[in-house]
């Protein structure tokens, strides 16, 4: 008699699986089908859904397709998709390391691409000042081009007027406010708390608190001998940090009002890890179970060179201890 073994859990990290808008936008763009792409954009329930979809549209083929649309029938939607694709290409050229790891030629190409992106995006903003996705991408260009903290804040303020709880823009702004991009971590932390406090109960926005703590950990390891794991354990074991993570989790993923809208997989995954690091294994287990087959490994980027493996390890640990 052979024991019936459970098939291994294979998480689905593809955002197209969790979000219908992302799937529709990605499919239409890669099929170079402009009417279908426009339809998918118009069907997006929120700006955040659409922005998640735009993140899936990049590469030379997509760029070529969007440029042809801009040549034939220039419009803010195509301009924003094009700007987003160019930004992704710029970051592909740059890489994700610290500034000191970027060579001069890489830096030149990176800035050239971002200049192109910002120009096409600013055209979209001029033609339709209320088109939030274009402004949201201009936060990324502002960061990469080092246009200044006040300029980034101006762009964010414009977004906040259109949608005060746009998570995509808030994560970009959080990154801009970090010390590594010319800001300071105290302001960044305060921004995360303010966004979380202002957000409705059950929204994804309190996840910003978790992201803020990860940025603080990252800064701790930047110029010290401390390993990422030691810094993480030391930071998340602090009483005040645990209290803040718990508060944020209860306002977001642990709230009964939590709904599966855009970014819910990222939020649930981020809290799953953060709560585990705070020692709240049962809440962590709840988050991992709520995810079902879906997963987002971006929080594990801080911890491991193989974030997907890190996700699986932490999930297994939470299911066992929780």
């Amino acid at each position, binding site marked *: 008699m052979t024991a019936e073994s459970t098939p291994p859990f294979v998480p689905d990290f593809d955002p197209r699986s969790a979000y219908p808008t992302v799937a529709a936008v990605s499919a239409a763009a890669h099929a170079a089908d402009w009417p279908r792409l426009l339809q998918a954009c118009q069907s997006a329930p929120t700006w955040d859904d659409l922005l998640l979809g735009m993140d899936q549209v990049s590469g030379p083929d997509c760029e070529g397709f969007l440029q042809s649309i801009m040549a034939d029938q220039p419009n803010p939607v195509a301009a924003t998709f094009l700007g987003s694709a160019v930004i992704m290409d710029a970051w592909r050229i740059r890489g994700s390391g610290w500034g000191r790891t970027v060579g001069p030629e890489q830096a030149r190409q990176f800035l050239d691409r971002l200049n192109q992106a910002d120009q096409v995006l600013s055209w979209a*903003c*001029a*033609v339709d000042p209320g088109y939030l996705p274009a402004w949201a991408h201009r936060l990324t260009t502002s960061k990469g081009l080092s*246009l200044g*903290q006040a300029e980034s804040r101006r762009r964010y303020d414009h977004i906040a007027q259109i949608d005060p709880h746009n998570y995509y823009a808030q994560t970009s702004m959080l990154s801009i406010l970090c010390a590594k991009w010319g800001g300071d971590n105290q302001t960044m932390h305060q921004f995360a708390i303010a966004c979380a406090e202002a957000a409705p109960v059950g929204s994804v926005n309190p996840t910003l608190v978790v992201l803020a703590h990860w940025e603080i950990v990252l800064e701790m390891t930047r110029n010290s001998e401390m390993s990422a794991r030691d810094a993480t354990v030391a930071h998340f074991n602090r009483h005040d940090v645990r209290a803040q993570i718990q508060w944020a989790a209860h306002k977001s993923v642990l709230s009964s009002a939590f709904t599966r809208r855009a970014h819910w997989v990222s939020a649930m995954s981020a809290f799953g890890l953060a709560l585990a690091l705070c020692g709240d294994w049962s809440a962590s287990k709840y988050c991992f179970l709520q995810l079902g087959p879906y997963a987002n490994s971006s929080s594990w980027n801080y911890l491991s060179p193989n974030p997907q493996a890190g996700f699986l390890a932490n999930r297994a640990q939470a299911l066992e201890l929780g």
Partner: protein
Amino acid sequence: MITSTYVDGVRLLTAPTTGQARGGITFRVGYSDEPFQYTGATHLVEHLALHHLGQTDYHFNGTTAPYMTHFFSQGTPDEVTTFITRVCQALCDLPLDRLDLEKQVLRTEADGRSPSMGEWMRTWRHGVSGQLSEWGLPGMTPAMVADWTRRHFTRENAVVWFAGPEAPPSWSLPLPSGVPLPMPVRREMVDAYPAYFSQGSRTIGWQAIVGRSMAASVYSDVLRRHMFRELRQQHGYSYTVDTDYSPVDAQHASLMCLADSGATTTDAALGGFIDLMTQSRWGGLHADDVASAIGAARRSLDDPDWEALTLPSGCFDLLTGAPTSTREELLAEIELIDDAALHAVAEEAARSALLCVPVGLRADWAGYALAPTSIHGPVEGTEVAPVEPSTQRLVLSAQGITVRTPPASRTVRFDDCAGMLAWPDGARRLVAMDATTIHIEPTLWRLDPGVRAWIDQSIPADKVAWQPARSPDAIPVPAVETVAGASGAGATPVPTSGTPGRGPGTTGTPVAPVRQPTVMMGVWIFLLVVSIVWLAWTISGWVYDPNAGLGLTVLGVPIWMATIWVSLAYRKRLRAWKQSVPRKPTDRRR
């Protein structure tokens, strides 16, 4: 109704007005017309012409602009006409005895004046001709002032205007006859628009050159309203926002926008400003702004004083050859202004837009190309090193001079040189037509004495403006100097590959480097040790064997003599070196 007549051969524009009379005389000459040695002449003439008026009970003033010199007065009709007559009389007989005093007044005025955004724009756009420079003043003789006045302050080159309750009484305008001065050809120094440059700390400026039209004037007002709302009222990035529409010649006008910014929000003010300009070009204009601006333009034409108010600009039009328009023609032009017409102006403006961003900020991200600081590339030739250790090099060539400060460089080519400032102590400053300057202090470069003569020969004498002698403490000294200093040791010869007659050829043979004090100290210590050892040996020789002592003494004399000589030389050089070492910062204040 504007009436055009002549008084003593001078064109006169008159229009009725209520209240005080106003009037003036405008000459078609300004600082953009001045050759290098004459820079400052027009402003000087303006001052001298007004000197004898002293202090009056009525208001008067004079201004020197790039292309015009204007004398203006306000008072009773008699006071105004008398003012203009007396200005003309003064121009025929300037008080040249007070030339030096008036030069001093101009220097004081210049010391207190900051360049305006308009001057920055003109300089970046058109080079040195756009600059208000008064380099020629120190060397300006009474004959030069009289010559400049006689040539340009003439009746054919002037227009008088008068606005009063009644026609002006009979008067005389005793100006000599001459020829009208054509407008100078403006040379374009920026190769690609839209362009930007970095200057100043807080103010953002934007300028475009567009065709003269009511639509462009209205567009300027639309921009001002948009800027006020966006940059000041909604976000508080700026306190002062302003726009200006001013004709620059018969066909074109300058469209200028200015916005200041707070210390911590300069980047946001720039971003907001650029977005605003992009939106004005590509997006929709606010209907309220457009309606208000058109309304304001219409109301200005309805002003009963409109004709009197337009007299000064009428003088500008006559002197530049611009067509004049009646009130009805302008009203008809306003009626045609719609969004499409304003967008056409925005499109036209973008083709010549020049943006000034505060130092430390950029605008390449918005599609503005960096305006060139020097339109000519570097020349290749003999390299000269500075006295202080630096990567900077002066490159001397028959074509011109380059200052190379890697990765940048500035070049003044002799065939495109506006002129040169020369100081009696040997300092020279070359000024290119594109306003690039290269200042050469002989104390700071390892120059052969022949280089100065070679530079002087490369610049025609009529392009050299001599400056007053400087006090010794005004002459810079290098922070670190070798013993040789600027006396020629280690100097670089002048280029010998130049065209015949340009360079002095073979002067300035390189001299072997002079020993540093540290090298000399080594030699001195070595000789001292040898001398002492030899002396001890000689003394012991005398004690034990007088014959050996005598031999050692004979051989020792040259060694001791050499030691004494080196000691004296070293002492002298050590003293010179101590004098040349950097002084404390507090000692360097002047």
